[in-house]
């Protein structure tokens, strides 16, 4: 009996040392853009979209698990593998699109920082340049271990949304009922929202980041089960938090029929219904999420581009040892912060471009992933099983279809 307990604690300890990449990648999903989407979904459609988070969890686990497995088995990043198996041309163009998409994503994260600064009554210029400096310093001066600790700590602050969810006093019976009973409406606005909610969940930078960080963390094959658990826990965590965002907005804004456009609108509109505390929690959550993602997105770009082009990679290296890696990282942060501080910048076109480039790249990345993970020469006996492949291909087809539909919808609107 005692032996069993001891073993249990040992396993917990191993898990704690392995966890990180999956959880961090998943949590960054709830970035400024994600929070906006979920707020709007809750405000405009109430609880009626909550059911969609269950298939989202499954899709997220399936896709991210494959990345994690490839990292552990091959010890190489996704961009590394794409370069080695599909050649330099494909890699180069994929990286160009990835850089574009991540720059626009980073801009919208800095927009999130600016918005939350305004909500919290802090000077926008101070906040944006301060956070840019902070995220730059964190990566350039830190090691992988220290950076990961900061990231995991940032994950904890997402609890803000859970607390604010409880503060809004929802009817839990109704929440549970709508989460297991898919409600499908065939009006245009509902379908758009549904596509938006699912579409923001899986973005190309996530696969690159997850695989690169598992590689940098040097996780061994025998500890792979913990890495898998890391992915699953991360997927559940991010979606539970997303559900709470929807709940807060559904319970207050939807009930009173208030329409919103952004996360900032949501926070401001919350104030009269849910009180001061809820407002601050919501605003602080947005700030935390935005800073966190403003760090991860440029980092993911630097990882993948340098892997693909054969340059030195790694948070553990110094600026001198990996100049391209750090220059790229620095440049993206500077662009992201500078654009948002320009007077008269319109956010909507930026978000549109970032979604469009994401949607353009995602099909390629997912298809490459499927080909790589099923390549016996690379993966040995760790390729997908037939059943797993059935679900993986299903997910990939669904995600590709969705992102193309979203792309078409946005530009024909």
């Amino acid at each position, binding site marked *: 009996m005692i032996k069993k307990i001891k073993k249990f604690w040992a396993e917990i300890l191993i898990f704690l040392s392995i966890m990180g990449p999956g959880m961090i990648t998943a949590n960054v999903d709830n970035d400024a853009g994600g929070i906006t989407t979920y707020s709007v979904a809750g405000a405009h459609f109430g609880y009626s979209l909550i059911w969609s988070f269950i298939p989202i969890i499954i899709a997220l686990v399936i896709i991210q698990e494959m990345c994690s497995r490839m990292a552990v088995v*091959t*010890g190489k990043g996704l961009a590394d593998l794409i*370069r080695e198996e599909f050649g*330099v041309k494909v890699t180069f163009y994929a990286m160009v699109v990835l850089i574009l998409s991540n720059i626009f994503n980073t801009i919208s994260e800095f927009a999130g920082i600016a918005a939350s600064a305004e909500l919290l009554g802090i000077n926008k210029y101070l906040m944006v340049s301060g956070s840019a400096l902070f995220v730059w310093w964190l990566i350039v001066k830190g090691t992988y271990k220290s950076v990961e600790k900061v990231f995991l700590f940032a994950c904890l602050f997402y609890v803000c949304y859970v607390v604010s969810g409880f503060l809004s006093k929802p009817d839990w019976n109704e929440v549970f009922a709508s989460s297991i009973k898919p409600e499908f409406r065939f009006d245009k606005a509902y379908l758009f929202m549904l596509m938006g909610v699912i579409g923001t969940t899986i973005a190309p930078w996530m696969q690159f980041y997850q695989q690169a960080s598992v*590689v940098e963390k040097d996780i061994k094959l025998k500890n792979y089960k913990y890495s898998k658990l890391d992915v699953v826990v991360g997927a559940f965590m991010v979606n539970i938090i997303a559900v709470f965002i929807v709940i807060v907005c559904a319970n207050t804004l939807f009930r009173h029929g208030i329409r919103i456009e952004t996360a900032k609108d949501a926070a401001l509109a919350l104030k009269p219904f849910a009180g001061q505390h809820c407002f601050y929690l919501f605003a602080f959550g947005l700030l935390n999420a935005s800073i966190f993602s403003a760090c991860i997105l440029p980092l993911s770009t630097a990882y993948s581009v340098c892997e693909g*082009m*054969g340059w030195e990679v790694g948070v553990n290296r110094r600026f001198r040892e990996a100049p391209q890696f750090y220059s790229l990282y620095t440049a993206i942060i500077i662009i992201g912060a500078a654009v948002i501080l320009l007077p008269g910048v319109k956010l909507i076109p930026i978000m549109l471009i970032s979604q469009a480039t994401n949607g353009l790249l995602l099909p390629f990345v997912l298809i490459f992933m499927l080909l790589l993970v099923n390549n016996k*020469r*690379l993966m040995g006996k760790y390729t997908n099983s037939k059943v797993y492949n059935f679900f993986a291909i299903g997910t990939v087809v669904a995600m590709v279809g969705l992102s193309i539909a979203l792309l078409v919808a946005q530009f024909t609107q």
Partner: protein
Amino acid sequence: MFGKQERQDLVNENAKKMFIYFSALMDRPVIDSKGELVGELYDVMVKPSEVYPQSAQMIIRTGFFSRRYAVVDWADIQEIDGKEVTLKTDKTKLSFKEKHNNKEALTLRRDILDQQVVDTYNHKVIRINDIHLLEVDQSLMIAHVDISLRGLLRRLGFEKVVDFLVRLINDKAPYLENEHLITWKNIQPLSVNPVSMTIKINVPQKQFNNIPAADLGEIFLDLDMQHQSVLFKSLDLKNKAKIFMNIDAKAQKSLIEEVDPKEIVDILNSIPSDEATDILEQLPKDTSERFLSLMESKQAKKLSQLLGYSSDSAGGLMVAEYISFPKDTVIETVLKQIKERTFKVEPAQFVYIVDEVNHLIGSTSFRRLLLAQPQEPIQNAAFPKTYCVHLDSSVKEVAYRMEKYKYNAIPVVDENNVLQGIITVDDILSQVIAIAWRRLKKIKTKTTL
């Protein structure tokens, strides 16, 4: 006949003709003896046995949606250049199959281009952007690999545009020189077959012998895990030991888990005993005992004795390899024996003088021995006095004594004055530095508080 510049240009022109980049051949059309299109050049297999591998076969690819491959011997090629490949035979003699997998062969596209290799000259892990081939007697040899940005641009088809732009700005820009070509002699490929976990080719790994041990350890840590264990397994004992001593404890541990215990024992046998005990100390008790049980008994006894001492006492720091002679030995014999013996470590230049049961009597130096009369007993060449430390002396004490008497090695004795081993100045220095660092850190944290 020619001016100097013109002659140089001619040489360059000829050199250009002899060398060709693999990117210029890849995907070029292949035409048979009747002038009909067969397919495109997909890959080239080389004979890996030589220093500069030579082309042996060509793989032709055809079709777009249902791809098929055919293998052609190099002897069947009429002509090959940057535009197309002409075959001696005609199309009907080729047999196209769905797969071209030849696990044993080394191929340019699959195994070298875009892959990671070790540059054994600059001691780095690099990714190959292009391959520079030399044309010799109708066949191609791998001469250099290109890791430059220019190579990357060439593959992307932007080389000419960028070259033009660079020339506009600076005609002599370093970018335009071929300085990033690395000769194949210094390249160690790392293609791994994950099923059998072997490196496909085993080029004699002489190159590794020239790399300083510390750099070899660093190269090793630069590789991904899979490559690490595969590379390790393919090295000879000497290089294995070199790597093993120069990686951090974490990497050592994971190697120990993956490599056959017998091999680890061989390594432990071939490295200095203080290094071996350091490694054994970090392992769980049952693991280190298993290694000791696999060792030959004399070595095991020595190591388990060393293991018994606390790592910050003289006993834990000392090496059990030293030179000692009975007090009556004639100097001539001493010198002869020193010359004949092989040492695992470069011994400090002291010779210890002991009695029949290894009690420490005195010491002498190589210099003193050389200057003394060859016929005299060793005792006569001894220093007037020899200082030593005890097994349980602290690091500080050892350092203090060594500094005081200006020793670069100090003997360690037990309570009965029996010689146990020696501590060299570099062993003690690393300990002292570590202590100093810890102190400095403490002071720093205190002042910041």
